């Protein structure tokens, strides 16, 4: 995309299951699809084990030998590089102490999590990416609500990791999602205030904020100086207020329908009935001269190639971005 904004595309929509998107030829097809849609930069999502070989840094390196080897693999499909890598330290992985469950909300886990960030910091820097995008805290339903002290515990972990990312010359962006224990506008603002603006930024996801009941355009205007990363996607639904607290919300809300038979929450740009004011949001980014990446994604929503193409069309025809 030829634009003053920097556009990238997230690969997570292809990796919908444990045992898919493993063969290199399948990955090449996805990369070519992204490239044909006009994107030359991608965001990676983390995972675990031998089948997450385009997500988990150690496994990527095992597949391609080196950072350069991986970049060469991307460039075969005319994808030039990586904008960012997403990491959730709360998601258990075999690489992190053999599926240990740890949380940034637990002070006893802080040292381990800071240590776990190392392969990600190294990888993001190694492939020349900009941002390590992280899930700052686990799901709200798993823990009692966080008070200011609790938020400070979380923030401290990220301040420590922020020192490491800054030293490596990359950014660290805390990504809000609609299930996180930092959920309300006040909690989110609290977390941002408790982190060091010099080293810790905010990854604004338009759909996640909307589901969580926060207006992404207004939030961006309030906190433009902290926003260092953007995920652009749409949703047709917002949480009624308490759904994110359903036990097992990853499953019961985002897949099980929240008792409302909503079996898919996230949508491509331009979807009918989409709640996100995408043109308004992008206009706000332009007004503020937003310098970071805008990563388009559709999360898990059906046919990945179709979604990528519909997103590309939207950028070209509605947002007027030249391909």
């Amino acid at each position, binding site marked *: 995309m030829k634009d003053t904004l920097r556009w990238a595309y997230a690969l997570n929509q292809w990796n919908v299951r444990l045992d898919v998107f493993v063969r290199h*030829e399948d990955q090449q*097809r996805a990369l*070519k*699809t992204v*490239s*044909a*849609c*006009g994107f030359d930069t991608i965001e990676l999502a983390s995972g675990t084990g031998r089948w997450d070989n385009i997500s988990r840094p150690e496994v990527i390196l095992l597949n391609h030998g080196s950072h350069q080897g991986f970049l060469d693999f991307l460039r075969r*499909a*005319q994808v030039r590089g990586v904008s960012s890598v997403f990491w959730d330290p709360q998601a258990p992985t075999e690489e992190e102490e053999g599926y240990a469950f740890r949380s940034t909300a637990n002070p006893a886990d802080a040292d381990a999590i800071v240590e776990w960030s190392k392969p990600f910091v190294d990888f993001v820097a190694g492939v020349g990416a900009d941002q390590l995008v992280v899930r700052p805290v686990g799901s709200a339903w798993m823990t009692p609500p966080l008070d200011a002290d609790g938020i400070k515990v979380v923030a401290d972990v990220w301040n420590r990791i922020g020192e490491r990312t800054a030293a490596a010359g990359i950014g660290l962006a805390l990504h809000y999602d609609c299930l996180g224990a930092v959920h309300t506008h006040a909690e989110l603002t609290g977390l941002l205030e408790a982190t060091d603006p010099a080293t810790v930024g905010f990854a604004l996801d338009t759909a996640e904020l909307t589901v969580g009941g926060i207006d992404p355009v207004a939030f961006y205007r309030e906190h433009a100086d902290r926003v260092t990363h953007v995920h652009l996607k749409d949703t047709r639904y917002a949480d009624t207020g308490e759904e994110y607290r359903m036990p097992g919300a990853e499953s019961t809300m985002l897949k099980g329908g929240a008792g409302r038979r909503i079996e898919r929450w996230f949508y491509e740009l331009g979807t009918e009935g989409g709640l996100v004011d995408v043109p308004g949001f992008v206009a706000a980014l332009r007004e503020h001269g937003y310098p970071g990446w805008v990563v388009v994604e559709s999360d898990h929503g*059906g*046919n*990945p*190639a*179709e979604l*990528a*193409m*519909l*997103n*590309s*069309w*939207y950028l*070209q*025809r509605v947002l007027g971005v030249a*391909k």
Partner: protein
Amino acid sequence: MSDERAIKWSYMDHWRSNGPAGPVDQWHSHRTMSAFLKQIKAVGFDAIDTFDFRIWQMYGDYGGPAKYQEMVQDHGLERIVNTFHAADYDVRNYAPHLPETHENILEDFRVTMGRWSEIELDNIIVMPATLYYDMEPVTEDKLKYSAECWNKVGEITAGSGVRLTCHHEFFCGIQSEPDIDTFYSYTDPRYVSLFVDTAQHCIAGVDPVALYDRHAHRVSGFHFKDTRNVATGDDHRHRPDSEIMAPTTGKWFHEMGTDQGLVDFAAMMTAVRDNGYRGWISVEHDKANKEGGDYSESTAISRWYAKNVLEEIYR
């Protein structure tokens, strides 16, 4: 203008997506049509091709070809370039090698050209013969009768400003190299053109590049698609059908750029350049959804290939 392109890319109307009650094509609803056109545009195609039998939906759902073409243009695509005339060949009433059926064929085209008169098409594409098993043995006389038939059809379509061009399916009566050459020797270059389908020729054991080079002055368009299999044994004359039912092969057609593809597209594009062809190349991947395939992905991959491999050769 310096970036004026010699080649533009059109997408031939084969498409399926998954609907709530099973696979549907893009003509299912305005919504599915819009999603189709958006995807074609997104990856950088310039226009579309279509089938003649879609004319009914154009009239029924969109108010005619001109109105439908407006919708195509609203999605950022230029126009409808070619139409494919998929006829029901039958030795009883519609067989180019049987002169007694010619009047029926000519009447079909008179009516058809009237239906398309609202818009300007480049080509009307035909399979120039019946199924192979309905034509065999393929004799010189039969080729000559076929040529006479298409000469007359071509005169009719030329009257509407549209070129009549022949697309040689591997399972039709005129598919071998000598038969194709004989056929063109009897047809009038003013009225009958060749439409090179890279996969179909390849499946029939004919080198599409050599064929093109030999007939370049008669060529009015291309279907760029790939195959992984050459027809063997009776594949080309399998009863009742070769295209889907040949026992050897469940899926003949693949998008260009596919692994193990047999078509040498680099050589093909070089030949297109060296013959000075300017105009449209159509991309087709017929039945891409078979055996776990997916139209959206195949369309993206084929356009990627056109942009990153073929346009490096000639654009």
